[in-house]
């Protein structure tokens, strides 16, 4: 039992390391197609993190919506717009260095803030069953749920209208 726990722990840390590496790849790969594939890797790692945090339903949703739908959209967009100008994929070296400097400053500040707080540990009894989530979605959070439905409907129409070829 003890060794199993150590194994699971090591697995979670390996997932986190892989996710971080894939995220850096998604940002810095010059070839956008590779960047998209790295993003898929990040999304799958995040699904594993959700599993480890007790959010089984979210892990499934992550795989279905992100890896299934959003990745397909992004790959399609890359292939539909891919011309040879992909060679120059980033702004100049000065902008890259300045951005990395600013972002690492932000990251150090936030990390020191995170580490200075005494967080309550994740509690084991908070693992939720899917039917509890569904009941909450249908009772307490019914309003955001309905608004989300209207938004997705508008997005469906809007995406078709924007991307269609002929002008009315």
């Amino acid at each position, binding site marked *: 039992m003890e060794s199993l*726990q150590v194994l*699971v*722990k090591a697995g979670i840390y390996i997932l*986190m390391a892989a*996710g*971080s590496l894939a*995220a*850096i790849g*998604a*940002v810095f790969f010059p070839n*956008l197609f590779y*960047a998209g594939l790295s*993003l898929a890797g*990040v*999304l799958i790692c*995040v699904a594993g*993190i*959700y599993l480890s*945090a*007790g*959010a089984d*339903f*979210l892990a499934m*949703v992550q795989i279905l*919506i*992100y890896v299934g*739908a*959003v990745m397909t*959209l*992004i790959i*399609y967009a890359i292939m539909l*717009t891919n011309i040879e*100008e992909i060679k120059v*994929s980033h*702004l100049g070296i000065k902008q*890259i260095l300045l*951005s990395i400097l600013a*972002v*690492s400053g*932000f990251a150090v500040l936030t*990390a020191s803030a995170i*580490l200075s707080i005494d967080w*309550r*540990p994740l*509690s*084991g009894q*908070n693992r*939720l069953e899917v039917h509890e989530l569904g009941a*909450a*979605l249908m009772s*307490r959070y019914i309003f955001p749920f309905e608004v*989300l439905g209207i*938004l*997705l409907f508008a*997005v*469906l129409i*809007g*995406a078709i209208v*924007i*991307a269609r070829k002929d002008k009315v």
Partner: protein
Amino acid sequence: MNLIPTEHYLLFALVLFAAGVTGILTRRNVIGVLISIELMLNAAAINLVVFSHTVKTAPETGQLFAFFVIALAAAGAAVGLAIVLALYRNRHTVQTDEMNLLKW
């Protein structure tokens, strides 16, 4: 469940978020910027899930709002990529520094 301390989840989310911000600041291609936005939204969703264990609200709040974030990210990706396709069709570019139509 209490295998990993909360800080480590938050630090992982911070790495994802920082990578996303770097991508937004440095990418020349709009689709690259959209990929970076997806990274940042994922970091926020991880934080929501983790905080749902550590605060005293109803336990399903964090997971449901992470679910809403995922749905909104899908909506954003759909509209964003439609705009990219329309822009590519009209202006023949997907580079951020060549999109100066609204620049004065």
